[in-house]
């Protein structure tokens, strides 16, 4: 549905977006992750044709953004970082305007009512956008993006400034639409909640891509344990196991917290060793990295590769 190849945007010597390529299948929901200033908004602005790329190409549903901008733009609903609202208009006037602007062909009244229903704005139609709170402005922005029923949604930090209940509601709306969606965020848990895949971008470069499972490294063997006993006894017991590469221990209130890094599943061996050393296991679990760790790992990995 979306094909991006070797996309670059340079402002003078600074490369805000540097040689990014990815493709997105119809119906996929993609999280676009990165710290502030990583190039997320710039990339989205290029996808929607708001700014031009320095080099590279973008194809939306088979239409090149540069060569046939009208067709490409018709496929996209865009919610920029700041919802583009005309504050002196009422919500209804605004949506009517967007409907005309996009040249939408759906039955006007039914279409707009449906969108207001979906974004929970049904009762707000006659109110001036100026008087909308941050959360409601964000909803109005999403409503605007949905006008004309475009197959692709591009949402730039859509949940910023929303309260937790609104965030959950927003996620439900977006994941229920069944549209090809790219949304950017710097909140990692957000991306994992609704995305089938994530793209991580830092300093203009795409540094990692994949599902959460792929990124969290399913075939890594890291375990954390809580044991009752003393640290020296634990160390002697575990040091006999060959496959353990790294062993970290911390003792607090007669409990030993252990994390081990190994190159195979050592759990049975660990159990036996600790049992014969008479150390009771209070807890043992596989350690899955948090998204924060995945993110930092990707960032530092990319920096190592570029030799910075």
């Amino acid at each position, binding site marked *: 549905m979306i094909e991006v190849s070797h996309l670059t945007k340079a*402002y003078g010597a600074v490369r805000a977006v540097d040689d990014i390529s990815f493709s997105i299948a119809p119906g996929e929901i993609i999280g676009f992750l990165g710290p502030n200033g990583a190039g997320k908004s710039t990339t989205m*602005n290029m996808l*929607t*044709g*708001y*700014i*031009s790329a320095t080099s590279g190409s973008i194809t939306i549903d088979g239409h090149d953004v540069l060569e046939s*901008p*009208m*067709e490409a*733009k*018709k496929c*996209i609903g*865009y919610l*920029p970082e*700041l919802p*583009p*609202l*005309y*504050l*002196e*208009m009422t919500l209804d*006037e605004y949506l009517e*305007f*967007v409907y*005309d*602007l*996009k*040249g939408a062909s759906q039955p006007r009244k039914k279409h707009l009512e449906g969108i207001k229903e979906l974004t929970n704005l049904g009762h707000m139609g006659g109110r001036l956008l100026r008087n909308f709170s941050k959360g409601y402005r964000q909803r109005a922005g999403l409503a*605007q993006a949905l006008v004309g029923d475009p197959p692709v949604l591009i949402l730039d930090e859509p949940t910023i400034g929303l309260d937790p209940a609104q965030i959950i509601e927003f996620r439900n709306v977006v994941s229920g639409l069944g549209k090809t969606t790219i949304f950017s965020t710097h909140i990692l848990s957000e991306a994992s909640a609704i995305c089938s895949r994530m793209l991580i971008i830092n300093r203009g470069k795409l540094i990692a891509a994949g599902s959460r499972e792929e990124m969290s490294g399913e075939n890594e063997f890291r375990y954390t344990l809580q044991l009752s006993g003393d640290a020296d006894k634990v160390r002697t017991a575990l040091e006999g196991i060959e496959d353990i590469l790294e062993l970290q221990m911390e003792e607090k209130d007669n409990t030993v917290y252990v994390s081990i890094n190994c190159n195979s599943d050592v759990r049975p061996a660990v159990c036996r060793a600790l049992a014969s050393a008479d150390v009771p296991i209070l807890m043992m679990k596989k350690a899955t990295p948090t998204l924060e760790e995945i993110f930092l790992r990707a960032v530092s990995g990319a920096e190592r590769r570029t030799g910075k």
Partner: protein
Amino acid sequence: MKAIFYREIKAYFSTPVGYIFIGMFLAVSGYFFAASNLLPKLPDLGSVLSNMLMMFLFLIPVLTMRLLSEEKNSRTDQLLLTAPVSVRDIVLGKFFAATAIYLLTLGITLLYLLVIGIHGAPSYGKIFCNYLGFVLIGFAFISVGLFISSLTQNQASAAIATFASLLFLYAVEWVRGSVQSKLILAIIDCLSITKWYNEFELGVLSVPAVIYYISFTAVFLLCTIHAVDRRRWS
């Protein structure tokens, strides 16, 4: 283009801008009409219009200042430029909205003509020329204002810069007498937007003047389209 045109027209009346422009225009032209037609009992409406030219320096910036600058300021340009609409349509939609408000206001001043028509014998041919010239010079001024509005994010800067530019175009004629260089004279001829109005004022339907104003307006509209486009490519 139609959607943008209608939205702009509405915006003129949902903000004070439309009321300020129409109100001030009619108040001042009403005064001129009273002072130069009603009180001295003269049927020549042309002098009201040429006096109004001076007022344009203040009024046109009010009409054009927010057209494009406000879009940038409130980021609504992201909506317009990512919608399936060309930059040309955006610029023309806004230009026609401003000219529509202008023509509406000018239309109201035809009441003066009605008053004169009832009580005297105005020269309709001459007044037609006066109005035609006035419409054309208004379009030219609006295109300058629109262009300047595309260069800034701030309404006040747009208004002041438009005022300064219009004042320059209005007053460049005054140095003509003291200039010898043929080149500079030619430049003054091109820029001197009020000089071309003189013929209309005398009641002459001057084809070169009509062509001058239309091309002047077209050049500034093209510059505006280019200015909006260029920011996306920088």
